[in-house]
């Protein structure tokens, strides 16, 4: 049968194949829920997910957040919220969006509408209370803590202020916590939906075993990282590099990159300073690659406890010579590569 465009519209509106009038994805619990989940499930997920969503929105649109990334930061959690939340009451994080379809679907949907007003509004209030708390703690911590974007905190080495205060701001520890929290919550919900309570128990048992292997290595690894960070000062790294050229420059830059502790906030300003001091682009690329690939402090703090010493050592050995290669390649590439 040929389908004129209005059929497609109807298909979208009904949310089902075929031509039965559907609920326009109206929210409901009990028999009206797509997964037949109850009142409590709708209430709890509505509270928690709206609260998390509000924290993400307030955090990503605050003046301290990188400018222009709010749509990504807000869109991805919303996608995840839908993935988790549609099978329960068809997702309700917005009373207005819950009301419209309910008016069209009518009947029981209107009788249940109260929940999809109460849960998101109460959840948003909780989120609104949590967000400023996170912001206040962030201010007192200033630059400390474990950063979310691919690095380790910079406790021992005081980061120097970035030479060009651009739009980027350090993602706070709270952002990282929210990300991991979302991952944990989403995977738990997905486990529950696909395998039921047994899935949750199996996941927690795996996590328990993992904890037993991670914790005994974590403490000595953190101490090792602390001693290494204490011994390598920024000034020493700067002196190591200077304006050495040739293969020797690349080797020194790789060694310095591996020794640099901390996240992007610690490493990138140093790159800018080195460029100003006359280091060539090959050495700078080797430095950044070595810091990213084989940064000793990140390996000690994260990779070794979580994936095991054997794996960490294997990856370290396999990537040890690569930063020099990247540096040599960068010298030959027909790109300008100027640090601003």
């Amino acid at each position, binding site marked *: 049968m040929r389908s004129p465009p209005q059929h497609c519209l109807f298909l979208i509106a009904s949310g089902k194949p075929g031509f039965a009038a559907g609920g326009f994805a109206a929210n409901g619990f009990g028999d009206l829920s797509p997964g037949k989940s109850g009142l409590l499930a709708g209430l709890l997920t509505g509270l928690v997910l709206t609260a998390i969503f509000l924290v993400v929105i307030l955090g990503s649109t605050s003046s301290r957040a*990188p400018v222009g990334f709010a749509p990504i930061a807000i869109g*991805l959690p919303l996608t995840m919220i839908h993935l988790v939340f549609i099978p329960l009451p068809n997702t309700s994080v917005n009373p207005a969006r819950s009301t419209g379809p309910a008016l069209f679907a009518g009947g029981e949907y209107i009788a249940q509408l109260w929940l999809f007003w109460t849960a998101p509004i109460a959840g948003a209030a909780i989120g609104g209370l949590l967000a400023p708390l996170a912001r206040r703690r962030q201010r007192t911590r200033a630059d*400390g*803590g474990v950063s*979310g*974007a*691919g690095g380790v905190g910079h406790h021992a080495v005081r980061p120097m202020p*970035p030479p060009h205060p651009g*739009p980027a701001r350090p993602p706070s*520890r709270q952002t*990282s916590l929210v990300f*991991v929290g979302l*991952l944990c919550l989403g*995977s738990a919900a*997905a486990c529950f939906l696909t*395998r039921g309570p047994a*899935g949750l128990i199996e*996941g*927690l*048992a*795996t*996590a*328990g075993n*993992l904890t037993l292997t991670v914790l*005994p*290595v*974590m*403490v*000595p690894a*953190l*101490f*090792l990282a*602390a*001693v*290494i960070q*204490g011994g390598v000062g920024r000034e020493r790294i700067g002196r190591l590099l200077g304006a050495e050229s040739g293969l020797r420059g690349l080797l020194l830059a790789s060694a310095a990159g591996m020794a640099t502790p901390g996240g992007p906030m610690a490493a*990138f300003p140093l790159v*800018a300073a080195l460029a100003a001091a006359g280091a060539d682009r090959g050495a700078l*690329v080797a430095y950044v*690659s070595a810091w*990213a690939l084989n*940064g000793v402090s990140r390996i000690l703090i994260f*990779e070794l406890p*979580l*994936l095991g*010493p*054997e*794996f960490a050592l*294997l990856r370290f*050995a*396999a*990537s040890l010579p*690569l930063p020099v*290669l990247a540096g040599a390649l*960068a010298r030959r*590439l027909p*790109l300008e*590569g100027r*640090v*601003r």
Partner: protein
Amino acid sequence: MSASALLVWAAALAALAVAARRGRPALFSAAAQTGTSLRTILPTLALALPAAGFLTVLVPDRFAAALFGEETGLAGHLLATLVGAILPGGPFVSFPVVLALWQSGAGTAQMVTLISAWSVLAAHRLVVWEGPLLGWRFAALRLAASLPLPLLSGLAAEAILAALPPGTVGR
């Protein structure tokens, strides 16, 4: 406790001796920093470990093995490069994901490629940090020069694994 865990403890004891020789302030500051790190890491870890457990349950065994298994060869390495490059978030998001894939049958060398790609290509870090702080010209040069690195590290890991007795790097 495994033999490798004992090795880490031995290294930490050696570091303790080094710090003690540097003097009392160095020792105290290292100890204090270990405490600070633990305090900042433990709350995240308390969320990351359950996440890793749930993800392990979720990833169907055949899926991980079919996409990243040892037999997938070059295609597995290339896919791992792509996934690693766009995997968002910090180490507490990426390592649980890798752990879940690895436990569900992904190849060890392919996981080396994935972590290398996540650490050196890192699309999210490029956009949020490197471009704004160092300028897009440098970011482009660095990205171009590092493109082959994840694959090379994975292939090198494969060569090292082939030389080791089987089962040395276990899951």
